[in-house]
C-alpha cells in the first residue's frame, strides 16, 4: 500500500440538489499517469477539484500519503494544478507567472532566477521570459501554465483539459511532450479529458466516468478490449453492441445463432450485451456466412472505409480497407477472440446501433467548451 499516493473513499458531492459524484472510490498510485475520461458533466473535473482542494466533498474522505486531507486547504497540499484555459495571471509576465509559487515561498532571489530560467528552458520558452502572457499563442500559454505548476515540485500534478483549446496538430505534439515531462519529472499526473484518443495514448490507467459514477478503471488496453458495459464500449472507440444470450461458458447466442467466445462466468441463458469492434469484422461472400445484409452507407475515412450494413434490421459498422459499394450484399465473420460479452447495465440498448448514424456524435465529443459545464451550478455567479 505504500505506493498509493491518493485515495478517495466514498466521495459524494451534490451542487444545488444535483448529484455530481455518487459514492466514488479510487486509489491512485505514486508516479502514475491516470486519466479521468468521460463526457461533459460526468464529474471528472469535480473529482480533480476535490483532489486539488477547491471542492469539499459532502461526504467521504480524501487521503494523501495515508493522511486524511479533507480539511487541508489547497495552499497546503503538495499538489499543483494546470487549469482549464490556463488561468495565467494577466498582470504578470512569463517569468513572474512561473516564479509566483517560489516568491510565495520566499526563496532567495538568486535561486528563484536560476530555477525559473531552467524551467523556461525546459518547456521551450527561451526568450519569452519578459513577454506578457496574453501576447502568447495557446501552446505557449499552455507551457507557461505547466511550468508554473511544475516549478513547485508537486507530488501530484492535476491537469484539467489542458489541451482543450489547442488545435489538432499542436495537441498531438503537446500530448507527447506532456508524457515526456511526466516520465522525466517522475511525478503523478492526474489528467482530465473528454477525448478518448488522448486518454488512450497517454495514460497508464484510465478512469472512465459517467453520471458521477466510475464505469471502469483499467489500462488503455483493458478498457478498449474489455469494456465493462455498453457506455464504456461506445465512449471508447466505435462499437457494435448487440443483444445476446449466454448459453453457457464460452458460448453466446446472437440472432439465435451460437458463437464461440472467450467469456465465462455468466448465468446460463443470461441476457448480455455483446460488443464487436468494427475493425474486427471480416467481410465474406454472403453465401459463406450466416450473417449477411445489404450495405446502406459507405464513408471514406482515409485509413479505411466505414461501412454500414443492415443485417436483420441491426445496422453494423464495419471498418475495412477494401471498397464496397452501397447496395452490395455482404456476409460477415465473427471470430471467437473478437467477441466481447458484457453484463447488462442501465446503458444497454442506448448505444451501439448505427441506424441513426451520423457525424454528429463525433462533433459532440469534440466540444471542449462544454466540459466546464459540470461546474456551472457553482460557477454561475453574479
Amino acid at each position: 500500500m505504500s505506493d498509493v499516493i491518493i485515495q478517495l473513499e466514498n466521495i459524494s458531492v451534490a451542487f444545488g440538489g444535483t448529484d455530481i459524484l455518487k459514492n466514488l472510490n479510487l486509489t491512485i498510485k505514486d508516479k502514475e499517469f491516470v486519466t479521468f475520461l468521460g463526457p461533459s458533466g460526468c464529474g471528472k473535473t469535480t473529482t480533480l477539484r476535490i483532489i486539488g482542494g477547491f471542492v469539499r466533498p459532502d461526504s467521504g474522505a480524501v487521503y494523501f500519503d495515508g493522511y486524511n486531507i479533507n480539511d487541508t486547504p489547497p495552499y497546503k497540499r503538495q499538489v499543483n494544478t494546470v487549469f482549464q484555459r490556463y488561468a495565467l495571471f494577466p498582470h504578470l509576465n512569463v517569468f513572474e507567472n512561473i516564479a509566483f509559487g517560489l516568491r510565495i515561498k520566499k526563496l532567495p532571489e538568486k535561486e528563484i532566477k536560476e530555477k525559473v530560467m531552467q524551467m523556461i528552458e525546459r518547456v521551450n520558452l527561451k526568450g519569452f521570459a519578459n513577454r506578457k502572457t496574453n501576447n502568447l499563442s495557446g501552446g505557449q500559454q499552455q507551457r507557461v501554465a505547466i511550468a508554473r505548476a511544475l516549478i513547485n515540485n508537486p507530488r501530484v500534478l492535476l491537469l484539467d483539459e489542458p489541451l482543450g483549446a489547442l488545435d489538432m496538430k499542436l495537441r498531438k505534439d503537446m500530448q507527447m511532450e506532456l508524457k515526456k515531462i511526466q516520465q522525466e519529472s517522475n511525478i503523478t499526473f492526474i489528467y482530465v479529458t473528454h477525448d478518448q484518443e488522448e486518454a488512450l495514448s497517454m495514460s497508464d490507467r484510465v478512469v472512465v466516468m459517467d453520471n458521477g459514477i466510475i464505469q471502469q478503471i483499467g489500462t488503455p488496453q483493458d478498457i478498449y478490449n474489455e469494456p465493462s458495459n455498453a457506455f464504456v464500449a461506445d465512449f471508447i472507440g466505435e462499437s457494435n453492441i448487440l443483444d445476446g444470450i449466454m448459453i453457457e461458458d464460452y458460448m453466446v447466442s446472437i440472432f439465435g445463432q451460437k458463437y464461440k467466445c472467450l467469456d465465462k462466468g455468466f448465468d446460463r441463458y443470461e441476457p448480455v450485451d455483446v460488443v464487436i469492434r468494427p475493425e474486427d469484422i471480416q467481410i465474406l461472400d454472403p453465401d459463406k456466412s450466416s450473417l449477411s445484409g445489404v450495405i446502406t452507407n459507405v464513408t471514406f475515412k482515409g485509413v479505411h472505409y466505414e461501412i454500414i450494413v443492415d443485417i436483420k434490421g441491426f445496422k453494423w459498422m464495419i471498418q475495412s480497407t477494401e471498397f464496397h459499394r452501397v447496395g452490395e450484399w455482404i456476409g460477415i465473420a465473427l471470430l471467437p477472440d473478437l467477441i466481447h460479452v458484457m453484463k447488462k447495465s442501465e446503458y444497454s440498448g442506448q448505444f451501439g446501433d448505427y441506424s441513426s448514424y451520423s457525424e454528429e456524435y463525433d462533433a459532440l465529443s469534440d466540444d471542449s467548451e462544454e466540459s466546464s459545464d459540470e461546474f456551472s451550478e457553482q460557477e454561475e455567479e453574479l
Partner: protein
Amino acid sequence: MKKFNKIFTVLVYIFLYAPILVLIVFSFNSTKSTIDFTGFTLKWYRELFTRPDLLKLLMNTLIIAVIASVVSTVLGTMAAVGISSMKRRSRSMVLTATNIPMTNPDIVTGVSLALLFVFAGTFLRINDVFGFWTLLIAHITFCLPYVILSVLPKIKQMDKNLTDAALDLGCTPTQSFFKIMLPEILPGIISGATMAFTLSLDDFVISYFVYGASFSTLPIEIYSYTKKPMPPTVFVLFTIMFTVIFLLLFFMNMAEYKKSKKKKIDL
C-alpha cells in the same frame, strides 16, 4: 451628412462648455458686473488668497471628499468581493438593496439621515450632533453603492480560476486577494473611487441637512451667496477647481492612451 454630423458635434460641445467658459471669462473681469466685460484683471485671484474663509471651506470640502471616497472605496470593494461569492438568490437581493439608495431622491436621503443623526444624538446624549462626523458618515453612505457597482463587474469579468490558481500555488486567501484579485479589479476600484470623490465634492442636497455650524462645505456656503450678488472670487475658485479636474482627467487619459499604444507595439 458628414458635414452635418460635424456641425452637430460642435454645437453639442458649445452647449456643454459655454457656461464654464462664461464663468472663466468673468473671473478675469475688472468689475463685479456679470453683464459687461470691462477689462482684464487678476485682482480677484489675488483676493481669493486673502480670503481665509473661502479657502477654509475649500479645505473642508476636500477633507470630506478624500476621507469619504477612501473609506467608501475600501468598504465598497470589500462588499463587492463578498457579494460576488454569494449564492445567486441572496446576491440579487443584496444588489437590489444596494440600488435603492441610489434611486432614492437625495432630499429623502438627506432628511432621513438628519432624523437618524438627531435620534442617535439624543440617544448618545450629544448636544449638537451635526458637524464633521455627520457630514462624513452621510457622504460615505451615499458613495458606497456607486463603488460597489463599479467594482462588481470587474470581479465578474475575472477568470474565476485565477484565485484558485493563486491558492494552488501556495497563497493564503488573503495573499491571493492582494496579489491576484486586487491588480485585476484595480480599474474598477479606481473608477469607483473617482466617482465617490466627485460625488462627495459637489454634493449639496444631502449635505445641507446634515451639516452643522462647526463644519460646513463649499457647496453649502455658495448656496447662501446666490441670494446676494455673487462675488467674483467665487468665479475664481470655480475656475481653479475646473482647471484642476480638467488637467487631472487629461493626464489620466494620456497615461491610458500611452499604455494602450505600448501594448499594440508589444503585439
